C-alpha cells in the first residue's frame, strides 16, 4: 500500500504561492486580504482532516512549528497531533510533536521510500522547493489549489518555469467566498 501525495497550495492568479500566512516576503500574509468564506473554511478543514501526515520542507516546518503548537481548534488539533515528515539536512532536533526529519541529501529517494511504506495521505502544504522536486520526480498524485483573485506579480510559484509538460485531470472545481476558486487536479490516467 503506497501513500498518496497531495500538494495543497494557496496561490494568486499568477501562480505565486509564497508566504500566504505571513512568512517574510514582499507581501506577507497576502491571503488574509481575501474572504474565502465559510465554504472555503469548510473545504480547508475537510482537506486537513483527510490527511494522515504532513510532508513539508524546512521553511514550512519552521513556520508551522512556530504557530500551530500555540493554537487550538480543529485545524491545530489535527496539525499538532498527526505525524510530520520534514525534508531537511539542517534540522536535527525538531521540537514540534510527532516530527520526523528526512535527510534531504537525496530528498527524492527519501520521499519515494516514505511513499512506499506509509499507508494513507501525505499532505504537502507550502514547501516550495520540495514541491518542485516532487513534481519533477512525478511523485505528486493530487494538487489542490485555492486561487485568490489577485495578480501578485512577484514571488515563488507552484510551477516554476523548468517544469516538464504534464497532463492533469480536473477532479473538482468550485468557487468559495469572494471569488476564490478551489481546484483539485489529479494525475491524468
Amino acid at each position, binding site marked *: 500500500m503506497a501513500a498518496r501525495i497531495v500538494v495543497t497550495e494557496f496561490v494568486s492568479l*499568477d501562480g505565486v504561492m509564497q508566504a500566504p500566512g505571513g512568512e517574510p516576503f514582499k507581501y506577507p500574509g497576502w491571503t488574509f486580504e481575501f474572504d474565502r468564506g465559510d465554504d472555503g473554511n469548510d473545504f480547508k478543514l475537510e482537506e486537513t482532516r483527510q490527511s494522515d501526515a504532513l510532508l513539508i520542507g524546512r521553511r514550512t516546518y519552521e513556520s508551522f512549528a512556530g504557530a500551530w503548537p500555540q493554537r487550538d481548534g480543529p485545524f491545530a488539533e489535527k496539525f499538532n497531533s498527526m505525524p510530520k515528515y520534514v525534508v531537511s539536512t539542517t534540522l536535527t532536533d525538531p521540537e514540534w510533536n510527532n516530527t520526523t526529519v528526512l535527510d534531504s541529501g537525496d530528498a527524492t529517494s527519501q520521499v519515494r521510500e516514505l511513499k512506499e511504506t506509509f499507508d494513507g495521505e501525505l499532505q504537502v502544504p507550502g514547501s516550495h522547493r520540495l514541491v518542485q522536486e516532487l513534481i519533477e520526480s512525478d511523485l505528486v498524485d493530487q494538487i489542490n489549489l485555492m486561487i485568490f*483573485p489577485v*495578480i501578485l*506579480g512577484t514571488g515563488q510559484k507552484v510551477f516554476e518555469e*523548468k*517544469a516538464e*509538460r*504534464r497532463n492533469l485531470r480536473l477532479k473538482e472545481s468550485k468557487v468559495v467566498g469572494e*471569488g476564490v*476558486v478551489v481546484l483539485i487536479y489529479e494525475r491524468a490516467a
Partner: protein
Amino acid sequence: VRKIKSYFFISLDGVVESPDTWHFPYLNDEMGDAVGAGFATSDAMLMGRVLYDEWAAYWPEHADQPFGDVMNSTKKYVVSNSMQAAQWQNSEIISGDVAKKLTDVKAQDGGDITMSGSATTARWLLREGLLDELNLLVHPIVVGGGLARLFPPDEPTIPLELVSAQTFENGVLNLSYALAKE
C-alpha cells in the same frame, strides 16, 4: 462605454505561448461557444504589434479560410509606437498617448473590443486600468518548457474580482476576471 475584453488559452502553469502545441486536444463545442459568446458582442479587435504582424501576413492571403472574411473585414486596432503604416484592411495604429487614445476609442459608439493573445499589451492595459475583462481558459496541463507566461516575474500587484467561473466537461475552466473596484 465599449469594453475591452481579453481572451487567453492558458495552461495551469500560466503559459500562453504557442497554444498550437498544447491547446487543440481540449478544443470542443463548449470552448467554441464560450469564445464565440465573447466575440458576439464585439465589433473590433485590439492587438499588439507581434500578433498584428503575424495575422497581417496570414489572413489577407487566406480570406477563404473559416473566419477569413471576419478577420479581414473587422476593425483592428494595433498598439505600437514603432509602426509607420498598417496595410491590413481596416486596421488603425494606436501610438503616442495610447491610454488616452484607447479611452477615446472606448467612449465611441460601437460594440466591445476583443483581444486574443497579445500578453504584453494585455498586461499593460491591466496596469493602466483599461482592461474590462480578463478571460482565462485554463487548460488542465502543465506546459512548462520555458514558454512565455501571461504573468512574468516582477510585475506590479493588481487586485481582481472573479466575475464568473465555468467548468467544461474536459476540465478546462473558463474564468472571467475584472479589475477589483476600489
